[in-house]
């Protein structure tokens, strides 16, 4: 079992300060992430405003059903993540591990669907820089849409992969009984990160898939 006293790092006075600092730290980090994605979203929005027809046409090439499925999957994974945090707070290690595994599974489903969509784009010759091919007078801005599609979903997927890696770490630790009502801070912080990644998708989905 974890030794409670040694779980407090030397620079902190007590567990409460450590938990407080860690959670606050994650919020600060997320503020930084908002600015990161924000810059990307801003550039996208400017081009969409300049070329509304091209972007609408390009958006039609995305599979709305797969995007919607992914949205549901990710929201579900946020639910399981929240339940995992709750389990940690209640010292229920097995439930914690189980919910973390569920989150990981759902996250992996998301990434698999994304991989499938990317492959489809490859087949349709919509990958800028690789095999992009489009006809018509709007070809230029259509390509611009796909640049942003890959940049935005790619950045998001990268963050999800990092999140998945972290989940593996947490699952291993949870199964060893590392987390309990006395020490659940890291799980809570992980939860914040996962929810943020979810929220980014909730903005991405309408921006990219729902231009009708």
């Amino acid at each position, binding site marked *: 079992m974890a030794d409670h006293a040694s779980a407090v790092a030397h*620079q902190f006075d007590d567990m409460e300060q450590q938990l407080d*600092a860690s959670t*606050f730290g994650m919020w600060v980090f997320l503020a930084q992430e908002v600015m990161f994605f924000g*810059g990307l979203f801003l550039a996208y929005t*400017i081009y969409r405003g300049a070329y509304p027809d091209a972007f609408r046409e390009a958006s039609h090439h995305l599979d709305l059903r797969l995007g919607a499925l992914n949205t549901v999957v990710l929201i579900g994974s946020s639910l399981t993540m929240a339940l995992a945090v709750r389990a940690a707070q209640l010292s229920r290690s097995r439930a914690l591990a189980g919910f973390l595994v569920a989150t990981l599974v759902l996250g992996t489903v998301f990434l698999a669907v994304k991989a499938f969509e990317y492959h489809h784009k490859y087949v349709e010759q919509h990958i800028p820089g*690789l095999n*992009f091919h489009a006809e018509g007078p709007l070809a230029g801005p259509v*390509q611009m849409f796909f640049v942003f599609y890959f940049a935005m979903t790619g950045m998001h997927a990268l963050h999800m992969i990092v999140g998945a890696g972290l989940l593996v770490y947490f699952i291993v630790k949870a199964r060893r009984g590392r987390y309990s009502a006395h020490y659940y801070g890291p799980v809570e912080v992980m939860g914040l990160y996962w929810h943020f990644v979810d929220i980014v998708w909730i903005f991405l989905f309408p921006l990219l898939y729902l231009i009708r």
Partner: protein
Amino acid sequence: MTRTNYLNVQYGVRSWLLTTDHKRIALLYLAAITLFFFIGGAFAVMVRLELVTPQGDLVEAETYNKMFTMHGVMMVFFFLIPSTPAVLGNFLLPMMIGARDLAFPRINLLSWYVFVVGGVIGLGAAISGGVDTGWTFYAPYSSTYTNTAVITTALGVFFAGFSSILTGFNFIVTIHKMRAPGLTWFRLPLFVWAHYATSVIQVLGTPVIAITIILLAMERVMRVGIFDPKIGGDPVLFQHLFWFYSHPAVYIMVLPAMGIVSELVTCFSRKKIYGYSFIAMSSVAIAVLGFLVWAHHMFVAGMSLYASMVFSVLSFLVAIPSAIKVFNWTATLYRGSIVYQTPMLYAFGFIGLFTIGGLTGLFLATLAVDVHVHDTYFVVAHFHYIMVGGSVMAYMGGIHYWWPKISGRLYPEGWARFSALVLFVGFNLTFFPQFLLGYLGMPRRYHSYPEEFQVLNVMSSAGASILGVGYLVPMVYLVWSMRYGKPAPANPWSAKGLEWNTPSPPPTFNFDQTPVVTEDAYVYQKADEEVPVG
């Protein structure tokens, strides 16, 4: 007689490279940024040598273009932005608030490694042929036309930026959550306020350049014109994204320096700083307003008249908090008890040169004048007055002031004052002529120039040689003092501040017991009164 302190508690390379002690990490940063400073300085030497003659006769045009680019990149991203926060901030912040370390010591060490990786990549770019886009990387030249090491350099900058974010994030959490009992916000040293404001900018601004660099790299790799009109891109969008970070970045470079100056002025006047809350709030105001003025770099890039007006008025407003600080520092001297130790000389130098640099910013904020002086040596002179005459001077002042605490030794005061004077003279000779050159119309980034500009250019290059001496001499005596300097007492300056309540050098965990603070900052009632501890 050697007490255990953070320097001798453990020897060996591993104990340094795997340390989590904020003080050791500060020294790791000191070594790295000093190296980058001299590399950036070497590029500057090449630039000023070339400009002694009007013809481009020392190096090829492409080489020259790489020199000024890499001078800018090294100095901005690998020296100025980290300098005060990563060295002095890291060393002092926990001590100033009565903490044993920063909130996240391992992330602190990670930030140094990330920085070093960035620096190595940046150096690699320089060695493998260099980059010639200017430190501003404007598209489409940087995205489509140049054949130089843009992506490598951009990657180095990306890592340096990530390091900056980690430092800022660590400081914000530390200041919020780890202040000693009784240390309310308005009792914090102004150095801490300055670093808090700086950290907010680092955390919120740097990600924007991160994404800009990624988009630029994507354009180069995929050969798809995100900023190229051929598929509907807009090169001016690059400028907006770039400057959205890079303008606040200049406040990352100056706010910590202002924090140092506040500490120096109060200590060497032995008097409570005048207008404490005004200086503290000015730091926050500068951070906020600094995010609203970026397009003043783009007045002649085809912006609408009304947009230009908005950015112009905001640029005037951002000058006001800085003016407030200068007045308060000057007022602190009134009826003080002033001595002219080296740190104070640097503080005087900062106040004078920052005032000039800041006032010349008004010229640039004035739309009608900016049209004439934009992209000329006037701008070059303006920012060097602030960054070199300002930030670097303050950094030098801070290094000297806290040197006894950091090294446990005193530096030789005679040589130090001499260097400060040399720096001041060399600096003005280098950069004042550039204001004149700019108004005359000499554009910046010019390898060769019309003959009539030669006299002023020669003056500037002569000044640069003096400036170089002013930087080399401290390197020598500071290193010398680490071995041969007189051992320093805990508080050689009889200064107020929790950091002076520890031995010189301090033990690894700073305080035996967390101090309890019962009074405001800088209360110099009696010379030997100490801040109550325990």
